[in-house]
């Protein structure tokens, strides 16, 4: 399969997956499209980072970071809570495969394999949460410095 076709498939499918999940959790109408776009950007960042050999944790962190920043921007545009954009967009990043493998291995009695998979789930989840947290921190800092400089300009 040529590389450009892979990219197109990844973009289209991440959009469909995010919007599909948004439909099942009843996201407001006006946020559907933007949630899908946020999902595309997050997944593509993750995908390229994983392809560049950055490892599971760093690429998930970067994807979640971008999703968090986009969510905060969209929330300001559309006047919705941030969660509305973040939750559907994070769906492609959620560690579904290792979680399934963990339970499957545990049911089959392969305890060590299950433990390894559970550890992987924990690492990926922590990376996603850290990414979201970092994005919140950075945008907060950005708006605070902007406000500070505006206030100083007005005083002068």
């Amino acid at each position: 399969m040529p590389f450009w076709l892979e990219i197109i498939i990844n973009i289209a499918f991440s959009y469909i997956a995010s919007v599909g999940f948004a439909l099942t959790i009843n996201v407001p109408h006006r946020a559907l499209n933007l949630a899908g776009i946020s999902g595309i950007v997050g997944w593509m960042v993750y995908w390229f980072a994983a392809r560049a050999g950055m490892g599971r944790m760093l690429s998930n962190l970067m994807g979640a970071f971008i999703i968090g920043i986009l969510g905060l921007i969209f929330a300001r545009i559309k006047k919705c809570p941030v969660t509305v954009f973040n939750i559907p967009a994070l769906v492609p990043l959620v560690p579904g495969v290792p979680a399934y493998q963990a339970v499957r291995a545990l049911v089959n009695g392969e305890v060590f394999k299950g433990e390894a998979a559970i550890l992987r789930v924990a690492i990926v989840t922590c990376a996603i949460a850290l990414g979201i947290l970092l994005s919140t921190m950075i945008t907060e800092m950005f708006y605070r410095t902007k406000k500070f400089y505006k206030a100083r300009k007005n005083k002068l």
Partner: protein
Amino acid sequence: MSNQQDAKFYQEVLDICLNAGRLMIEGGSEMYRVEDTMLRIAKNAGVEDPRVFATPTCVFMSLDGGDLSQMKQIRDRNINLELVDRVNELSRQFAVKKISLSELRQKIIDVATATPTFPLWLQVLGAAALSATLMVLFMDDYDWVDFPAAAVVGAVGYLAYVYFKRFTNVRFLSELVAAMVMGLVTVGITHIFPAMITDNILVGALMTLVPGLALTNALRDLFMGDLLSGVVRLFEATLTALALGGGGAIVIKFLGA
């Protein structure tokens, strides 16, 4: 005389705030947002120093002037972001004095009784699209053989989940049953078409119900300092994951696929 009026006013504010908090938690909001919205409503209504404590199972609130402190229990929690958005919007309108206190009360009751949801067929379509596409994204080997199968299994599983949820009050049971239905359908399909891979189909289909988002939300609560809510939600997510994976895996093990 004025004392009685005060008591009535405080009761109304408490009612509105507690209802708003309950709706937001039922919709799956983060705790700091719930507390923030409740505090904002109370402050905009003219209460000097409101105090709030919210957990996933209960919200507490007290107001300084009226010797009043009340709580509200929360029974069912799921993700319904329309609720969060509506309550947020109402609180915003109240802050800019677009609606009065009594109108806010009426509108919050309206939100509680009649939130518009997407029609069921659209939800099922969403579940089908989601499970098929995520299967391809996750597996990374572009197997188009399993693509339609994952869509069918995801749709059937989601339907089973929705219908079974109406019959039972036991939590996690509907997830378990949905996962078992998914396992059964998957085993049936792979029996008819041996070229398909059971694991790939199930990974895609289970993503419709997966609590990975609850997990991420829980960690965010933990990092924000809401330790109690974070731990409770973490446990809830783990139980859901066990119900899902267990249901699917038990069926597969039983039928020997």
